[in-house]
């Protein structure tokens, strides 16, 4: 018991160290980029897991917020020639606005309406990214996005971009963890558990839902800005319903009531995309099959998790932690 306790406290530090020194160990630029993408996805999913894993709300449009952030950052840096940091902040602000506009009306309604509203919003945004040529560059998108720059320091190398992304992931994790372990997190879990009970306890149910949604939208938008800076161009084909479903899959598999689970799921599922590059020596046929069946795997994983392990990876870990004596509560 004591050893598992110390492991629980030590694990985050160990993992943080591993994440930090990774670029010193891994020298392959492509591989580093893959891990950087994993970080961008992880960032989105940390925000999404607050919304889904804690407050129990489904969003099928989070790729749209990533897109909004990416395009906002691109526009500010390329068209307006703003410094990167301002573009980053603008991405967050525009996403916050979008999130507010969507959340306030939708969250007055009963649960499932948010899922549908976000679906509609996501599709609408995907269409807009393609059609609003003067602002978004249309189907071709934005190219020539400058590298992220912190003041006079431009971040060009794969390692520096990796550290930027994972550094921001770390900050986001900290903020998310603070929020979830204090009053707002309890309020989120309360309204997830019983909206009636939450109302009867004086919780501002709509207010908590809206704040959580906007928070997750902002985080997604900032991830989008990072994506734009890391990749150098954005095109509408990235921010689709398929991407939103993938993010949901990561949140579902990662599990409810935990931030580590979804983060792990995000990293694993991103790595799955580049499986053949990561493990040399895999026969061509296997890696091809993996690519082809990637979405099938996601879909199957979602279904299996919802049916058999509704609390996801995070839930399984917690049950182990308690000695496995708990009943499985459906």
């Amino acid at each position: 018991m004591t050893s598992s306790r110390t492991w629980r406290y030590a694990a985050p530090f160990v993992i943080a160290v591993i994440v930090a020194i990774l670029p010193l160990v891994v020298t392959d630029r492509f591989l580093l980029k893959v891990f950087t993408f994993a970080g961008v996805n992880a960032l989105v999913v940390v925000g999404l897991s607050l919304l889904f894993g804690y407050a129990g709300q489904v969003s099928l449009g989070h790729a749209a917020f990533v897109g909004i952030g990416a395009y906002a950052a691109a526009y500010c840096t390329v068209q307006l020639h703003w410094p990167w940091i301002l573009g980053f902040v603008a991405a967050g602000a525009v996403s916050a606005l979008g999130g507010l506009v969507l959340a306030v009306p939708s969250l007055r309604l009963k649960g499932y309406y948010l899922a549908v509203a976000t679906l509609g919003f996501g599709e609408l945004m995907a269409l807009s990214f393609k059609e609003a040529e003067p602002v978004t560059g249309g189907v071709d998108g934005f190219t020539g996005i400058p590298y992220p720059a912190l003041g006079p320091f431009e971040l060009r190398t794969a390692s520096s971009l990796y550290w930027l992304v994972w550094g921001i992931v770390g900050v986001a994790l900290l903020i998310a963890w603070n929020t979830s372990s204090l009053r707002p997190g309890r309020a989120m879990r309360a309204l997830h558990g019983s909206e009636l009970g939450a109302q009867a306890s004086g919780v501002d149910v709509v207010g908590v839902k809206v704040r959580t949604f906007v928070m997750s939208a902002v985080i997604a938008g900032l991830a989008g800005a990072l994506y734009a800076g890391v990749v150098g161009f954005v095109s509408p084909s990235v921010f689709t319903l398929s991407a939103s479903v993938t993010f949901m899959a990561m949140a579902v598999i990662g599990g409810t009531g935990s931030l580590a689970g979804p983060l792990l799921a995000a990293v694993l599922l991103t790595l799955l995309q580049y499986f053949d590059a990561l493990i040399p020596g895999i026969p061509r046929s296997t890696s091809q099959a993996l690519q082809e069946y990637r979405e099938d795997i996601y879909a199957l994983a979602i279904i299996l998790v919802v049916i058999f392990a509704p609390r996801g990876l995070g839930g399984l870990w917690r049950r182990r932690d308690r000695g496995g004596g708990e009943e499985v509560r459906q």
Partner: protein
Amino acid sequence: MSELLQFLIAGLKNGCIYALVALGFTVVFAATRAINFAQGEFFMLGGMLGVAFWQLGLPLPLAAVAAVAATAAIGALFELLAVRPIKDGDPLRIIIVTIGGAVLLRQLTLHFLGPDERPLDAFSAGASFKVWGAAIERQTVWIWAVTVVSVAVLAILYRRTAFGKAMRATAIRRDAARLVGVNVSLMVTASFAIAAGLGAVAGITVTPLTQTVFSVGAGMGVKGFAAAVLGGLGDPVGAVCGGLLLGLLEALVAGYIDPVYKDAVAMVVLLLVLFVRPQGILGGSGREKL
């Protein structure tokens, strides 16, 4: 004038398709209080399976019927495998499972039937009808006829048969229905089968005009849902009205403003309805609000 008529005809044609898909959503929603995100894929399966059966040599009418039956069976199977195991019937979990299911159905269709678009012959050959300067294709008439028949059959099923009464009881109060002997699990499975059948009917009937491909499901799903919400979620009459209205709106926007915005209409309508009048046009007291 004939231009307006042409738009109206197109609008009613698509409207019928949306009405059928929206009815599918409504049937499942009524039985489970959950949104079935796989509804669009049932529409896709109707078309794809119909073409597959036809290309295998079945005469067209048989292929169409077989496609609808097969899709209904897939719908029931999906419910048994993915929805029923969710013991608490939590709508949130059902929604997520149907999201996964939708992706899976789409992927399986891609793997088994390939990524290409597939055509289908019209149900009856012949030139279009000319009415008041507008042209009505024969397949459009088929769509109207099939929709009317489907809605009528559904109405009879729900109002005149014992089975229909059981379905309605399940929709109103599950626990009460269970107490009077209704096999609620069976009703839920049946609702998925019916919804799948309705989606497939829409899919197979419109394929001669639009061709079909494995990826049409998502877009149709959103539009069908927008139609259902527009009319009032949970209300079958609302679903039909919402579908027709959405079809007309789309046609008018595409005709008088710009075809590029056609697909956006459903999204905008959906968001507007949710924000302004979530219970839809025919919905009642606004009990959707918290």
